[in-house]
C-alpha cells in the first residue's frame, strides 16, 4: 500500500550504549525506525534486542548516546514519558495485573474517569471491547486476567499497547504464546496499523514470521548491530549469517543408532481441569531407550500438563506410568526423580532455577544426595561434578559460584538441563527446551539431546516448533485439546499431517481458534 509515502525515519538512535551489571548489553548502536513500516529486529538471545527496545520505550536509560524523535533529541526518564511522546510497547514478559479485569489492565494508569474522579467502569469496558474485537480473541473486558490462557493474556497486552494510539509501537516477541490462528489475527492488526502510518518495531525469534511481515530488518549480535537491510533484499541465510556469523540452523544430525527396549510407558493418563473437562485426556504412549519422541501441539494442547502428571506434580492425576517395565507407584516428585525421571520445565525463571543461588548450587540442587556422606556434602566431589557438567554442556560461566541470574538465557537453560542430568535420569522430559534461547545455545541443546539418546536415555520433548519436531524426533506424537491425536514415525510424518492432527478437536470450542481466516 502507501509504502513509499511513509518511509521516512521517525526515530533514530545514535551511538547508543547500555551497560548492566555483568554485561554490556548494547554497544554503540545506530538504529532507525521508519514510519508506516514494520521494522524487524532480530538477534540471538542476549544480543541486546530487548534492551534496545526498553531504551526506546523509556524503561531503561542509555549509558551513552542520543535518541532523536523526529529529528529532535529526547530523553525519557520513564515509560510514561515515552508513552506521552507516542511510543508504546508490548513487553516480552507479560506486564499485566492478574487480579484486575481486562479492561482495568488496558486502561491502567490512564483510567477513564467521570466528573467526580470516579472510574467510569462501563465506558472503560465498552472501549476495551472495541480493541478486543479487533483481535477477535473472544475475551470479555470484564474477565480477570489471571483466568485467561497465556496466549489470551498476550493478546490483552497487545490490545493495551494498541489502545495507546501510539505512533511507534514496539512488540517484543508478541507471538511467543499465540496459536497459529491468533498470529494471523495479529498480523492483520499490524497491517492495519501500518496503513495508518504507525511505525512498528517487531522482535521475534521466528524467522518465517519476520520475513513475512517485515519491511526493514536490523540484526543484532552481542550488543552490536551487524546488519541493516530492506527485507526484500534478504533471505533466511543472510539473517542467520548476521546473527551467528556463520551458516546454520543446526539440528545436529541423527547418528543412526537404533533405539533399544521400551524404557518408559504411560497408560491412560488423565488430569481434570479446574474449570471442568480434562486437561490431559486418556493419553498413553511408550518410549524406547535411546529414542527421541517429540510431542507436537499448540499452546494449551496439554503437553506441559502431561509432563506434570508424569512427574507427579498433580495429586488428582490418574493413570499409570512404567519405567523399564516396572510400574512407578511413587506419587511425589522427589521419589519419581529417584526412579529416573527428570523434567526440564518450560518456564525457566519460575520453575527451572533458583535465581539467587549460584550456578553450582542450582546444578546440584536435584542431586545433592549423590555427594553426601551421612549428612555432609562433600565439597570436592560436588565441585568436580559441577565442573564436568559445565564443560560437557559448554555453559559459559567464569566461575560456577556466580549467581545463575547473571547468565544469558541460553546458558541458564543449560544449567537447568545440567541439573536434570546430574540426577542420572533414564527418561528425560523436556518442555520446550529451546524456547527463548539463542541459535547457538539451541544447537548446543540439540546436540546434547542427540548425545543423550545415543547414551540410551529416553527423551520426551514437547515443542510447538514444527521444524524442530521434524528434525529431532525419531517418532512424533501430536496432542490437541488434551488428547493424543496422532503418532507418526519420522519417515512418514509430514508437516501437513502434523498440523492437521494438532488442530483436531478444536471445534467451536471455549477458545475462539476457529474461523480465524475467514
Amino acid at each position, binding site marked *: 500500500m502507501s509504502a513509499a509515502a511513509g518511509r521516512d525515519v521517525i526515530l533514530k538512535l545514535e551511538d547508543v550504549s547500555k*551497560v*548492566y*551489571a555483568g554485561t554490556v548489553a548494547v554497544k554503540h548502536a545506530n538504529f532507525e525506525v521508519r514510519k508506516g513500516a514494520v521494522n524487524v529486529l532480530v538477534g540471538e538471545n542476549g544480543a541486546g534486542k530487548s534492551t534496545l527496545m526498553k531504551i526506546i520505550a523509556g524503561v531503561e536509560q542509555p549509558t551513552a548516546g542520543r535518541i532523536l524523535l523526529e529529528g529532535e533529541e529526547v530523553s525519557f526518564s520513564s515509560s510514561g514519558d515515552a508513552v506521552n511522546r507516542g511510543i508504546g510497547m508490548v513487553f516480552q514478559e507479560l506486564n499485566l495485573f492478574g487480579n484486575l479485569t481486562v479492561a482495568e489492565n488496558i486502561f491502567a494508569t490512564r483510567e477513564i474517569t467521570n466528573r467526580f474522579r470516579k472510574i467510569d467502569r462501563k465506558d472503560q469496558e465498552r472501549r476495551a471491547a472495541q480493541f478486543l474485537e479487533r483481535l477477535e480473541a473472544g475475551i470479555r473486558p470484564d474477565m480477570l486476567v489471571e483466568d485467561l490462557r497465556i496466549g489470551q493474556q498476550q493478546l490483552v497486552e497487545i490490545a493495551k499497547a494498541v489502545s495507546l494510539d501510539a505512533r511507534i509501537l514496539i512488540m517484543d516477541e508478541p507471538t511467543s504464546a499465540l496459536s497459529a490462528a491468533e498470529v494471523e489475527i495479529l498480523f492483520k492488526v499490524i497491517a492495519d496499523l501500518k496503513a495508518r502510518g504507525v511505525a512498528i518495531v517487531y522482535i521475534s525469534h521466528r524467522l518465517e514470521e519476520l520475513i513475512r511481515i517485515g519491511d526493514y530488518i536490523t540484526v543484532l549480535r552481542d550488543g552490536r548491530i551487524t546488519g541493516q537491510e530492506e527485507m526484500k533484499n534478504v533471505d533466511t541465510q543472510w539473517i542467520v549469517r548476521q546473527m551467528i556469523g556463520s551458516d546454520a540452523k543446526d539440528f545436529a544430525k541423527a547418528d543412526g543408532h537404533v533405539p533399544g527396549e521400551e524404557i518408559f510407558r504411560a497408560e491412560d493418563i488423565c488430569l481434570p481441569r479446574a474449570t471442568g473437562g480434562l486437561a490431559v485426556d486418556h493419553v498413553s504412549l511408550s518410549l524406547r531407550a535411546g529414542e527421541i519422541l517429540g510431542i507436537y501441539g499448540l499452546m494449551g494442547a496439554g503437553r506441559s500438563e502431561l509432563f506434570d502428571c508424569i512427574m507427579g506434580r498433580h495429586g488428582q492425576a490418574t493413570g499409570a506410568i512404567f519405567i523399564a517395565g516396572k510400574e512407578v507407584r511413587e506419587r511425589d516428585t522427589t521419589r519419581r*526423580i529417584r526412579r529416573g525421571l527428570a523434567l526440564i520445565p518450560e518456564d525457566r525463571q519460575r520453575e527451572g532455577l533458583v535465581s539467587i*543461588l549460584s550456578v553450582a*548450587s542450582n546444578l546440584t540442587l536435584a542431586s*545433592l544426595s549423590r555427594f*553426601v556422606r551421612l549428612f555432609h*556434602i562433600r565439597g570436592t566431589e560436588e565441585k568436580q561434578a559441577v565442573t564436568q557438567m559445565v564443560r560437557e554442556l559448554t555453559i559459559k560461566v567464569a566461575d560456577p559460584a556466580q549467581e545463575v541470574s547473571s547468565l544469558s538465557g541460553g546458558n541458564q537453560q543449560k544449567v537447568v538441563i545440567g541439573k536434570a542430568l546430574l540426577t542420572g535420569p533414564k527418561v528425560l522430559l523436556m518442555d520446550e527446551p529451546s524456547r527463548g534461547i539463542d541459535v547457538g545455545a539451541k544447537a548446543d541443546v540439540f546436540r546434547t539431546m542427540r548425545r543423550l539418546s545415543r547414551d540410551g536415555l529416553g527423551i520426551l520433548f514437547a515443542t510447538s516448533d514444527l521444524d524442530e519436531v521434524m528434525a529431532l524426533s525419531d517418532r512424533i506424537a501430536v496432542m490437541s485439546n488434551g488428547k493424543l491425536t496422532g503418532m507418526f514415525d519420522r519417515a512418514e510424518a509430514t508437516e501437513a499431517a502434523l498440523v492437521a492432527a494438532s488442530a483436531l478437536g478444536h471445534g467451536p470450542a471455549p477458545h475462539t481458534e476457529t474461523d480465524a481466516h475467514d
Partner: protein
Amino acid sequence: MTDIPAKAAASSASSGSALLTLMKLRTFIALIAVLVFFSIAAPNFLSTANLILMSKHVALNAFLAMGMTFVIITGGIDLSVGSIVGLCGMVAGYLVLNGIDLQIGYTVYFNVFEIALITLAVGILIGAVNGLLITRLNVAPFIATLGVLYVARGLALLSSDGRTFPNLVGKPELGTTGFGFLGAGRLLGLPVAIWILIVVALAAAYLAKYTPLGRHIFAVGGNERASRISGVRVNMVKMFVYMFSGFCAAIVGLIISSELMASHPATGESFELNAIAAAVLGGTSMSGGRGTIGGTIVGAFVIGILSDGLVMMGVSSFWQMVIKGLVIIVAVVVDQAQRRLQSRVTLMQMAKAG
C-alpha cells in the same frame, strides 16, 4: 572472542567479592563501633564480669534469632517464639515442682536432664504445629504463628492461673535438684548458656553450609516451585525450620527459668521482635533466600550490647527504644545502599573492560 568477556567477568567478580566482604563486615563494623563507644562512654563496660553478663543477655536473643533466621530464609516468619519461651519455662517449672500426676495415686518426678528433654520436645512440638498449619493447611506463616503466639501464651498463663512457679530448687529425695545449672553454672569460666549457644550456633552454621537440608532451606526461600520440581521436599524443609525455631525457643525458656529459679508465664513477651531485628541486622533478607547464622549472631550482639551499654550509661529506656529502632533502620538502609554501590562498581568495571 570468548576470553575477553571472561576476563572482564573475572575482574568484576573480584572487585565484587571485595565489596561483598565489606558488606559482610558491615555488622562487624557496627559491633566494633558499639564496643569502642561504650568502653569509652560507660565505666566498667570492659570488665570481665560485665562482658560475661552481657553475653548471657545476648545469648538468649541469639538463640531465638538463629531459629528465626532459618525461618526467614525459607520466606516465612515465626511470631510465636516469645510465647514458646514462656510456655516452655512453665513446663519446666511445673515438672520440677509437681512432676506428672498419673491419676492412679502415683506421681512421676523426673530428673533435671529429663525435664530439659521434655521441655525441648514441647518447644519442637509447638514448632511442628506451626509447620503443619503452614504446610498442610496452607495458612500464611504470619497468621499461623500469630495464632500460635496467643494460644501458647494462653496455655502458659492457664498452667499456673497466671501465677509464678517460684523457688525451683527441687527436692533431693525426688531427684529434681540442680535445675539452676543451666542458668548459673559455669564450665571453664564461661556460663553454661554460652557454651550451649556456641554448640548450637556451630551446628546451625554447619547445617546451613554443608548439608543438603541447609542447601534446601535456601533453595525453598529462593524459588519454591523450582525447588519442588527439583525434588526438594519443600514441606519437610518448612517443618524443620519451624521445629528448629521452637527448639531454640525452648532452650531460652529453660535458661531463663533456670537463671531466675522461677517460671513466670509472661516471660518472653515481644522476644520475637528482638529476634527478627537481630536476623535482619545480620543481613537476612525478609524476602527469603539470603542470610547467615554468623551474621545473625553478630546482629544479636550489636542489639544486646547496645541496650546493655545504654543502660549502663543511664539512658532512659524510652530513649533506648528509639535508638534501637533507628539502628535497625540504618542497618537495612546501609545494606541496600551497599548493594546498589556494588552493582555500580561492577558496571564501571564492565564499561572499562568492554
